[in-house]
């Protein structure tokens, strides 16, 4: 497989996964805003920070109102991380590798792009927000399902999967970070206690993980168990640890994989060694930042080994 094609497949899956998870991120925050009593809610600014788009947002000169932030994260083509941009980038990557993916998959991505351009551009009305975001999530799920059901388990599939699971791990981490940034975990305010569990429940639900959590953890929803489930579980497919296992599985079948495997194993070791029992909001945030850095290292390793043509030229000629 051409290095350039491998890279495009990898990014196609990452961008689709990013579109899906950005939609999930907005859903979780919207639910949080509804669940929390007025006055304690932290608003929409943390979302922009969490997707590392603060500079781009500030450049727009807008305030952090719900409407503005959602327009920026959902429908702004000048924000490369927005849902519409992610889907457009996914389509662009798909377009350059349409000879490698099943035709229906290309048609589906193209459809989703047309839908996004028509319905998401410029932002969303509150009333129809949920259904449009749900459409994006389901569209990305259908993309994954089609690949699962129709694509050869060859090199191309491995790069798609590696890209998807790496992005998913990254976004699950960021979604947890939305919660940690609301700074309510160790708030001593007695009056807010009842809200904590509701908030964690909405995080689980935004990842379609509530039922799976109940089946697996067999305890009521509380922060320690939710964190353990979303970060360290090896069975829930959106849990960071489980995603890493999938990346490792795919990379294990690729050639020249010693470098990337080393970096993946290092992060897995690091996660296993962590105790999240009673972690403070600050420590949780630091932990997640370190985890995201580790995921970034995996991307770097894949990129250097498989995508960078100059690198391959030096090594192989």
């Amino acid at each position, binding site marked *: 497989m*051409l290095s350039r094609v*491998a890279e495009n497949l990898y990014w196609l899956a990452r961008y689709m996964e990013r579109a899906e998870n950005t939609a999930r991120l907005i859903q979780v925050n919207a639910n949080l805003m509804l669940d929390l009593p007025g006055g304690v809610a932290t608003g929409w600014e943390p979302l922009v920070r969490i997707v590392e788009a603060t500079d781009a947002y500030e450049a727009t000169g807008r305030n952090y109102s719900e409407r503005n932030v959602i327009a920026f994260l959902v429908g702004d083509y000048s924000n490369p991380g927005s849902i519409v941009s992610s889907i457009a980038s996914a389509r662009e990557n798909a377009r350059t590798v349409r000879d490698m993916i099943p035709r229906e998959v290309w048609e589906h991505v193209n459809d989703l792009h047309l839908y996004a351009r028509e319905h998401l551009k410029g932002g969303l009305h509150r009333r129809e927000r949920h259904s449009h975001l749900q459409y994006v999530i389901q569209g990305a799920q259908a993309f994954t399902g089609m690949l699962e059901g129709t694509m050869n388990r060859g*090199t191309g599939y491995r790069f798609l999967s590696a890209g998807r699971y790496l992005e998913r791990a990254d976004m699950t981490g960021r979604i947890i970070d939305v919660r940690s940034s609301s700074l309510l975990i160790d708030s001593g305010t007695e009056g807010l206690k009842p809200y904590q569990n509701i908030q964690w429940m909405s995080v689980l639900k935004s990842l379609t993980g509530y039922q799976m959590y109940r089946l697996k953890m067999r305890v009521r929803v509380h922060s320690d168990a939710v964190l353990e489930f979303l970060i360290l579980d090896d069975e829930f497919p959106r849990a960071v640890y489980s995603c890493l296992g999938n990346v490792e599985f795919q990379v294990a079948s690729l050639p020249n994989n010693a470098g990337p495997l080393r970096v993946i194993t290092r992060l897995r070791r690091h996660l296993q060694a962590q105790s999240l029992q009673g972690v403070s909001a600050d420590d949780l945030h630091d932990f997640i930042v370190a985890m995201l850095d580790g995921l970034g290292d995996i991307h770097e390793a894949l990129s250097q080994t498989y995508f960078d043509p100059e690198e391959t030229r030096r090594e192989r000629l």
Partner: protein
Amino acid sequence: MTFSWEDYPVAGHWDELVRPDGRARAGASRLLRTLLRLDPDELALRQGAADLAIKAMGITFTVYHQEEGSIDRAWPLDIIPRIIALREWQRIERGLAQRVRALNAFIDDVYHDREIVKAGHFPAAYLENSANYRPQCQGVSPPLGIWAHICGSDLVRAADGTVYVLEDNLRVPSGVSYMLENRKVIKRVFPELFEKFAIQPVDDYPSQLFDTLAALSPRPSDYPEVVVLTPGIYNSAYFEHAYLAQQMGCELVEGRDLVVADDDCVYARTVEGLTRVDVIYRRVDDAFLDPEAFDSGTMLGVPGLMRAWQRGTVALANAPGAGVADDKLVYTFVPDMIRFYLDEEPLLPNVPSWLCADAESRRYVLEHLHELVVKPVNESGGYGMLIGPASTRAERDGFASQIRRHPRNYIAQPTLALSTVPTVIGDRIEPRHVDLRPFILSSDRVHVTMGGLTRVAMRKGSLVVNSSQGGGSKDTWIVGAG
């Protein structure tokens, strides 16, 4: 009933489906009856369904020179097919195969001993100042002596029913993917006709193309590694490059994916390392193949590719330099080539042409600009033409001075009343002018597509069929009599 074929205007030109008396031509009667049964709403509905299918299938082409920059447009397809009777098509098919055999013999001759010049049938001067003659190809012998492996020849039919060859595209002809996709869409739109009609299938083209390319491999005993070389996603025909690669199960590569190593072999950069490439179906112009051989002033291309091709370690289709015969001045000599190389009479006529390079013809052309079509010899896509009857005095004056300054660069032809096909315009059916581009594959065997891509000028009275200039397309049916 709201429409009758008696009301359909066919005066002054040849209609491909309807005779002047309103009856159906050979092979078209079932289609015309079906169309009569569709009321205007149903017609518009089916056209809408086709447009939707094209959008959903992502069939696009890219347009330049627009204010928005380069944009992706949905491919325009009219749902009423153009029909050619099988018996007539077989005659055309033989004519096309004959033509391409002669053209390949000509190109090989040009780059070797130039027998045709020595025999006095082709002036040497026309080669020396041809824009597409490549000195780098002199003395090179590509596999099987074939240079133009994929040829797209444009056919038109005049008012008397004669089918003429308008031009031969031997560089990187495009359009075949649209021929294949049009068929898929029309099958969705008129399933009932495909059940009853004996419509010749077109969909074996990708496997024919692969066989044509594979036969050129320098390592004939192995399964050849064939790749499609594209300039990239901003090329107007990128859709087709990706489509053909996918259909053939080949890698679609860009220049930066390939490298010529010290052994003068071509390799692709892959996640496994460097892998040998045997045949390159290149969809980039000569000038962008190899920055070392063609001083194009760009970084595009694969340094050393020409060297590898000259040494025979890789096959290029079409071969570099094949464009020397893709020149409207050379075109005028094709009937002579057929007689000279094949010792046969041409089966398909050329459109009568005046060479402006010839003093006497030039005088005639300059005196009759208002009734002629003047074409630059090296342009494609319908750019840079003068259509005399539709021109202004200022345009004619501009062309006249250009012709005087660069006579070698222009030919002139009579303005042909191109044939028409019924076409959906809103909820009505009106005649629109068409041409036809069949594709001819040559390597160890010659294969002609069953029909080709019918292009249609969507504006009333217009003769410009190019999609870059508002043209549309039609499915083309080759059917047995009935």
